[in-house]
């Protein structure tokens, strides 16, 4: 994507900061130039502080704070109705918060913000009889420095659907067009809300691949989702939101590490043995017997510790299985409830 065509690069290049050297490998294109933008405080592209928003009798967002760094994929994760969409709508300038502050790209607002911020909203659509190329061409005309929509159309895999009416596209194709429309203005930040809801697994994976490409171009992405797998696969950092509040902000691995006993090993022993063989190990938390199987939860290198101990006790573990805690478990541990819809 021709990112270099856009922003007032002269200003940004005039004051190169040491940060430019720190750009991690693997994010080629645009990225370096952008980190030098003096209008962005440090590396924070979005700063949300103490955001509050009430709809009539319902407090949708209750004291939400987080920051999004340049070039990352930041996830906003939580169950339906947690206040995710309201939060990002405030970030996008589509809603006015009751209190708290939102600072995007150093404090842009109005038209200047919308030039730099691509938004893909839940429940937004196009007229049924508009063709794919017409929608891209039209939306490109809304921006001062648009991306080349032809290139974008090929990238999202819609070149062969160029003349198809929006109403005749599949769900996955609509989502990809939606992403393309969010990117057609050549934004520095893209907010993508519930991107893969309603897609089949293959379409979901294709969409994830697309998101990774977009990030590789240096676009900062805010991803709203309630899919754990999606968050785990794509996001550098996550804000877990529940009932309008931020429960935790961390990397997916960091959140999982907050689960008390994140590893579980199960096996069928070749002969009976004393639980103490296992419970004496520092890695082991709990040992349970379930219909001839033994389930052990614990931390660290649990599998190695168990197999070593069993070997010394001359027990062969059959049908050995290892499970790690997921974000689901982390959410359960942090909020006391399941995120599943």
């Amino acid at each position, binding site marked *: 994507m021709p990112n270099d065509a856009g922003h007032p690069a002269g200003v940004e290049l005039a004051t190169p900061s040491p940060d430019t050297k720190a750009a991690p490998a693997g994010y080629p294109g645009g990225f370096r130039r952008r980190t030098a933008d003096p209008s962005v405080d440090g590396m924070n592209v979005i700063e949300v502080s103490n955001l509050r928003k009430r709809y009539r009798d319902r407090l949708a967002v209750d004291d939400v704070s987080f920051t999004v760094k340049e070039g990352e994929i930041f996830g906003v994760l939580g169950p339906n109705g947690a206040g995710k969409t309201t939060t990002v709508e405030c970030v*996008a300038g*589509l809603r006015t918060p009751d209190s708290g502050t939102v600072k995007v790209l150093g404090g842009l607002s109005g*038209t200047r913000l*919308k*030039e730099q*911020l*691509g*938004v893909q*909203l839940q*429940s*937004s*659509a*196009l*007229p049924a*009889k*508009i063709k794919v190329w*017409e929608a891209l*061409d*039209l*939306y490109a*005309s*809304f*921006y*001062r420095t648009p991306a080349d929509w032809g290139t974008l159309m090929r990238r999202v895999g819609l070149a062969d659907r160029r003349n198809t009416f929006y109403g005749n596209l599949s769900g996955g194709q609509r989502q990809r067009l939606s992403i393309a*429309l*969010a990117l057609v*203005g050549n934004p520095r930040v893209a907010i993508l809300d519930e991107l893969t809801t309603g897609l089949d697994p293959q379409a979901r994976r294709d969409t994830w691949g697309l998101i990774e490409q977009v990030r590789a171009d240096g676009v900062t992405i805010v991803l709203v989702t309630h899919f754990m797998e999606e968050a785990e696969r794509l996001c550098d950092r996550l804000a877990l939101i529940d009932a309008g509040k931020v429960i935790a902000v961390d990397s997916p691995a960091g959140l999982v590490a907050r689960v008390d006993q994140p590893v579980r090993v199960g096996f069928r022993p070749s002969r009976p043995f004393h639980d103490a063989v296992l419970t004496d190990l520092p890695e082991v938390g709990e040992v349970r017997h379930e219909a001839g199987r033994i389930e052990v939860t614990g931390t660290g290198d649990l599998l190695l510790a168990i197999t070593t101990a069993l070997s010394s006790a001359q027990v062969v573990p059959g049908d050995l299985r290892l499970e790690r805690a997921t974000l689901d478990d982390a959410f359960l541990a942090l909020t006391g409830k399941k995120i599943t819809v």
Partner: protein
Amino acid sequence: MSKTILTEAKLFLREPSGPIFAILLPLALLLGLGSIPGFREASPDLGGQRVIDTQLPGMMVILSVVTMALTALPATLVTYREGGVLRRMSTTPVGPARLLVAQVVNNVAVAIVATALLIFLGNLFLGVAVPRAFLSFAGVFLLGAASMFGLGLLIASVAPSAKSAPGIGSLLMFPLLFVTGMWIPREMLPDLVRQISDFLPMAPFGQALRDTWAGHAPQPLHLAVMAATVLVTGALATRLFRWE
């Protein structure tokens, strides 16, 4: 802006039932009813005018304008709102108002085409005179169309769903068409009805079209009511319109 108008025009032509209805129905009525011999003779009820002089063509112009303004425009806008089309526009630098303007432009364009065809074909086949006070006629047309489209925007503002929008439009349209003289010429309506209708949005438009068609000046009262309709509906629609 021009690209938005052009794109909306294309979409318009892909689902042409609205425009076709607004153009063909009045035209067919004009040419069909205009060939009835009784309508081509001087009528004492119309003060010696023939029905095809101003009554019939004037009403057909009204019919095409209100079809676009009170049913086609609100239906499209409410559908756009419901489907999230306006919501998506609001994330772009230009905002959703541009789509609204493009819609109004296209709908007005259809009404202008319909009116031009009514004048041209009416003249060609029935010998209906081209509006004699042509500039005044054009001015009245634009002011009246503005008042009707203002009313249409107001309907789009208050209609709760895409299904209800055309219904609300029709509910408003048919009584107003009646007092404007669609089925019974205004000359034959009871005095009280006629006097009240002078202050309603549509009848002054119809009467002013007929007056200027015949070469007279429009009545100041009618111009004032049309202008007031533009202002009131415009202000209300601006306050009440919901983008999502």
